């Protein structure tokens, strides 16, 4: 296994020296400590770590929803600025607009950007087809299952053509079967469309299955502990997750990453 660090002008998103300290009543809490992470164009980076290690905070900072205490976020070498459609987010709790239909939810980012009606309709229809949601276009979120709602959220985040897609434990609120289906769906997406993705999870299996690179974080204060590249041509890439997880290479990687996390949990 090779450990890589991708720095330099080729990075799509560059997280540079990001630290975060929260002031609470109990005193200062150091959530993140000098995190460096560069994500190349078309790369699928999965961040794993023990719970409470600050991986979600790192994502909120990457999204521009939270300000870092030190450090900065660069996209294509320029400071990223506040949250916006250049970095869209898929949240664990879906965060669909309850008053809008599936099609309206997906159209939201286009509408606020002032994309004209015809173009909007075309892109929403295309996205609905791509995510296999066409028959639900006029349904309201509360009429859909959790898995369907998350597909809508993914479609809504993709339709604005972000530079990078941020996914914060997107399958954490789903049942095991739905999760499997969506994991395979996301694997298909990243294969076909070559999106740049930063993906947070606590599931090592998910990380190995989806990632081009798995980033392991230390326990609090969160640091980047190790980065592990997953070969693009790994034999299990075209298998479904059930089969993939019994491949020797897959098991080997899973064990290696899990051992890293385990030492962090024990250290806490």
């Amino acid at each position, binding site marked *: 296994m090779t450990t890589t660090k991708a720095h330099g002008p080729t990075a799509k998103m560059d997280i540079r020296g990001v630290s975060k300290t929260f002031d609470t009543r109990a005193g200062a809490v150091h959530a993140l400590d000098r995190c460096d992470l560069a994500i190349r164009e078309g790369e699928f980076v999965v961040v794993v770590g023990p719970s409470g290690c600050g991986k979600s905070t790192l994502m909120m900072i990457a999204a521009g*929803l939270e300000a870092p205490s030190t450090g900065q976020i660069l996209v294509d070498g320029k400071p990223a600025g506040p*949250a*916006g459609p250049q*970095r869209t987010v898929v949240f664990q709790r879906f*965060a669909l*607009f309850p*008053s809008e239909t599936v099609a309206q939810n997906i159209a*939201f980012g286009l509408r606020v950007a002032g994309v004209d009606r015809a173009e909007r309709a075309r892109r929403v229809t295309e996205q609905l087809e791509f995510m296999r949601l066409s028959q639900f276009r006029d349904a309201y979120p*509360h009429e859909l299952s959790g898995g369907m709602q998350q597909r809508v959220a993914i479609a809504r985040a993709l339709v604005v053509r972000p530079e990078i897609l*941020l996914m914060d434990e997107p399958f954490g609120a789903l049942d095991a079967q739905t999760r499997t289906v969506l994991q395979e769906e996301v694997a298909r997406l990243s294969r076909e469309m070559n999106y740049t993705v930063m993906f947070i999870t606590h599931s090592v299996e998910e990380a190995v299955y989806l990632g081009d690179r798995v980033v392991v974080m230390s326990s609090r204060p969160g640091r980047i502990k190790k980065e592990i590249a997953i070969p693009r041509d790994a034999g299990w890439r075209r298998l479904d997750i059930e089969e993939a997880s019994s491949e020797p290479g897959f098991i080997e990687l899973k064990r290696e990453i899990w051992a890293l996390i385990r030492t962090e949990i024990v250290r806490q």
Partner: protein
Amino acid sequence: MATRVRSFWRTPPGKIAWLAICLGSIVVLLGAWWYLTRPGGGISPLFLPPPDEVLDAFVRLLSRPYLGSTLGQHIAASLEVVMTGWLAAGLVGLPLGIAMGWWRKARWVAFPIFQVLRPVPPLAWIPLAIVWLGIGESARVFVVFIAAIVPWVMNSMQAVYSIDALLVSAALTLGANDRQILTRVVCRTALPTLVAGARISLGNAWTTLVAAELLAATSGLGYIALNASRTLEIGILLVAMAIIGVLGALFSVIMQLVTRIVAPWSRANAEGA
């Protein structure tokens, strides 16, 4: 038998069964009323006239003017005041409440005022209204306005304030600016709660108006009720009370319909009857 009765109450009734239950309880009430007020029934018609006398009073009210106005004019007078006061309160209270829910500075400034206003019963404003505005329509509109604005502000504020912050985050990452978030996400999501606030406000306005008419009016349903009690025309008094009740219930139903129309996606619609 006991288990059958219990299971009857446990399963929600169908539409026809529900209607039958409604009718049944009304029939039982009327029956008891008729039974107790029949000659020798124990209740003097001076205190509670039998149902047929009340019906007579209703017919009489319909057929000729009472206290200088027809029944329709009395109802119109009440409705005009309640609608003016309630809508004026909404015009101020709805945007103010939304602003207080959205900008904490607005909340800091305005919330204490409403905290103090809230416990003052609207009726306590009547003497002041009479001093300021006399025994006229404007005094009643003012009292209704006071009664309506407090729930309208408080509920609107709560509706906006309790919007899931994650929706705002999602809108931000999709590129929405503050104005778009407020109009497209916050207000739309809060709509069912905003309408619920309007409904509570209308209910308050209505009960307060009737009370205000007891004190400061020359027409209206409350005015009818007050005069009927002075002249011991209990039948007319009961008719006025019944109309007040039916109209109040009607407002509530209409506002529920409004929710269904403006927010067809609201979960609340699926639950209520």
